[in-house]
């Protein structure tokens, strides 16, 4: 059964969708993965660049087998790419000796037909006379064997988890990712709910790699549809669970760093793919157009946020992205963003921090004031207008609620998970007189937040260990005290590992809006504003 699932996944995978799990597989086999291409297009024929356990550089070219077969026609079609793979030297700063010869490996998720095998053998004979290493091949059977060796812990025996995994195969890949479901799947695989579980470092390393494969398998339908947002969210959840494992079992960085970087690459690649798609679109309508009017601004809000994060990300590493397009896109669509619930606030804040970087005027600051006004108006206990739902409610639920299709039993008036943090962010900008106007209405709202018991539990989708904090603000507040508190950060309520990666922390709070607390916002403000 397990083998069938793996086979099924491999059969339906494209070179782009099995690129990341294959890189995880290599990493777990002792390879040092140095580079993965962004678009699975060609970078001189090399989709993955790695160094094997003997220190020899390796270049991998991934090819999807049509109908499970790699034929002579395919071989002829990609012949130039293969020549580049073999003959062009690897140019990567981590490979010190530019003249060192490299291994070239063709990877396919099918089997190689006889005529193609003969052609490869002929090609290898030529390489021998040219004093080149022969072209190696990795086929479906090899990948399955490698996967079985690497992931003996992939599938827990509980049917519940296995069923969830199979259900992912039936998901409509054009839709949103069921985030909680993926989180539960990873949680059970990683035994995070079992507080007494103990594992060796080796076992944990394998579990992290297994979780990457499970994530990839779960995303199959979404990847097929080129649903970049689902991919971004899926890999962000994986990254969060990797952090949970690393923090909970206090793993040394060398045991998780390479897997972390691969997930980061997966997210970055999906982000750049999203950017490329946006560049080619004339509008942002998706699917059935008439009913899309109800969902359009929700989508735009998320897209502006993701492009803002990509714009910020670019400042943290030197990867080239089209900054001009990002800036134009974000500024064009910013007025169409929608505060559909408190879950949208991290997305609007992502835009705010990006906006702050490209606009030195006071305009970005007043976006914060607008958010404060919106919350205090709609969530005022006596307000007649519809209140903003807490960040635990997801977009799709809120839209159905607004249409009267779904009813919520609890009340949202008089409370907010974001107001306190937003007040601190605005106070940091020193707009005292405006804050004096905003303060009276803010005092009618209870400041709420959730603090997990253990720091590693920040990364869990839900946890039964933690305190739901509700704070009644002081009616009379002193500006100096407020300002002092606006700059104080409680380190123990920050997700410790992710804090070192502000761009990922920002993405994390967009995917997990219910994990936000004022200290996280202040910390992000410090890190993003000082770069």
């Amino acid at each position: 059964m397990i083998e069938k699932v793996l086979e099924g996944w491999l059969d339906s995978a494209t070179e782009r969708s099995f690129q990341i799990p294959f890189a995880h597989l290599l990493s777990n086999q002792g390879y040092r993965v140095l580079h993965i291409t962004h678009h699975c297009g060609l970078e001189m024929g090399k989709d993955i660049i790695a160094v094997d356990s003997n220190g020899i550089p390796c270049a991998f070219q991934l090819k999807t087998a049509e109908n499970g077969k790699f034929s002579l026609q395919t071989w002829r079609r990609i012949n130039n790419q293969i020549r580049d793979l073999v003959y062009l030297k690897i140019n990567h700063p981590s490979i010190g000796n530019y003249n060192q010869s490299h291994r070239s490996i063709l990877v396919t998720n099918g089997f190689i037909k006889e005529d193609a095998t003969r052609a490869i053998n002929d090609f290898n004979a030529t390489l021998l006379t040219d004093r080149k290493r022969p072209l190696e091949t990795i086929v479906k059977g090899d990948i399955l064997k490698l996967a079985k060796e690497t992931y003996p812990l992939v599938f827990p025996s509980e049917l519940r988890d296995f069923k969830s995994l199979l259900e992912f195969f039936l998901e409509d890949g054009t839709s949103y990712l069921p985030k909680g479901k993926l989180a539960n799947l990873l949680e059970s695989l990683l035994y995070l709910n079992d507080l007494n579980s103990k594992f060796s470092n080796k076992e944990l390393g394998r579990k992290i790699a297994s979780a990457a494969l499970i994530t990839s398998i779960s995303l199959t339908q979404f990847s097929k549809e080129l649903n970049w947002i689902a991919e971004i969210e899926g890999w962000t959840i994986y990254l969060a669970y990797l952090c949970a494992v690393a923090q909970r079992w206090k793993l040394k960085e060398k045991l998780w760093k390479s897997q972390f970087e691969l997930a980061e690459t997966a997210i970055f690649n999906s982000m750049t793919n999203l950017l490329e798609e946006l560049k080619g679109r004339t509008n942002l309508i998706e699917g059935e157009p008439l009913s899309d009017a109800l969902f359009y601004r929700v989508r735009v809000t998320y897209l502006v946020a993701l492009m803002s994060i990509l714009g910020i990300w670019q400042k943290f590493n030197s990867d080239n992205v089209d900054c001009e397009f990002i800036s134009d896109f974000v500024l064009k669509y910013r007025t169409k963003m929608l505060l559909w619930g408190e879950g949208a606030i991290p997305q609007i804040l992502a835009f705010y921090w990006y906006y702050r970087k490209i606009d030195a005027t006071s305009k970005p600051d007043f976006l914060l004031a607008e958010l404060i006004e919106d919350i205090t108006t709609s969530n005022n206990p006596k307000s007649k207008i519809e209140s903003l739902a807490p960040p635990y409610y997801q977009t799709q639920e809120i839209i159905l609620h607004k249409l009267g299709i779904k009813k919520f039993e609890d009340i949202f008036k008089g409370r907010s998970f974001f107001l306190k943090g937003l007040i601190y962010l605005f106070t940091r900008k020193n707009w005292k007189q405006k804050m004096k106007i905003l303060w009276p209405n803010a005092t009618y709202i209870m400041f709420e937040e959730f603090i997990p018991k253990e720091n590693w539990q920040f990364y869990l989708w839900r946890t039964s260990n933690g305190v739901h904090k509700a704070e009644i603000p002081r009616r009379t507040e002193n500006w100096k005290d407020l300002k002092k508190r606006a700059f104080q950060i409680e380190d123990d309520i920050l997700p410790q590992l992710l804090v070192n990666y502000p761009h990922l922390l920002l993405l994390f709070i967009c995917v997990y809006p219910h994990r936000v607390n004022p200290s996280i916002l202040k910390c992000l403000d410090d890190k993003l504003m000082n770069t």
Partner: protein
Amino acid sequence: MLIDFPKEKEKVIEFFTKYIIAKKKQLSPSSSLIPRVKVFEGHKQLLIREDRTREETEFKLIKSEMRYNIKEIENIALANSMENMFKKLDEIARELASKEFKMVFDKIDEAVERVGNVVSAKGRPFTESFFETIEKIQIDFDENGKIIMPKIILNPKTAEEIKLRDKLREIETNPSYKMRFEEIIEKKWEEWRDRKSARRLVG
């Protein structure tokens, strides 16, 4: 195994749950006045009051059990009537309403006793304890300055014994009571205005 109808049964259970919730509201209208907030995770709640005092509350489970034997189920099925089933659901709703009511009012008792806000009505005329209560509690006004009167929750038997409606009418009509009530409300309005004007950022 024998044939089952799991998906349909899930819907039936969902319906039963909704029925119990609706019945509970009907049986205990006072507890339905209390706003409900869904807490999605964690094991306790921390309340930080305006004076920065803190109160931690562990979550408590309110539950009611429905026990039946196979014979009973067969009887319900054979009777071709759901009457007995709904009787059982009503019992559950009653038990849950009573437990919830008790838990909420135990909490209120605990809070008012801690801050010394208890008014004893024992052996005193109703009007005296009424005025003392009104004086002790916080009363709010709407944006037009109109009073938002607090609600009195009383055991229906007690309400009948003390002739609550007559007593309240007397407060409205008796000139001396009316004057005393207006004086208190005037004071409450000033307190409310002070509270409102205290909502400011200073310095």
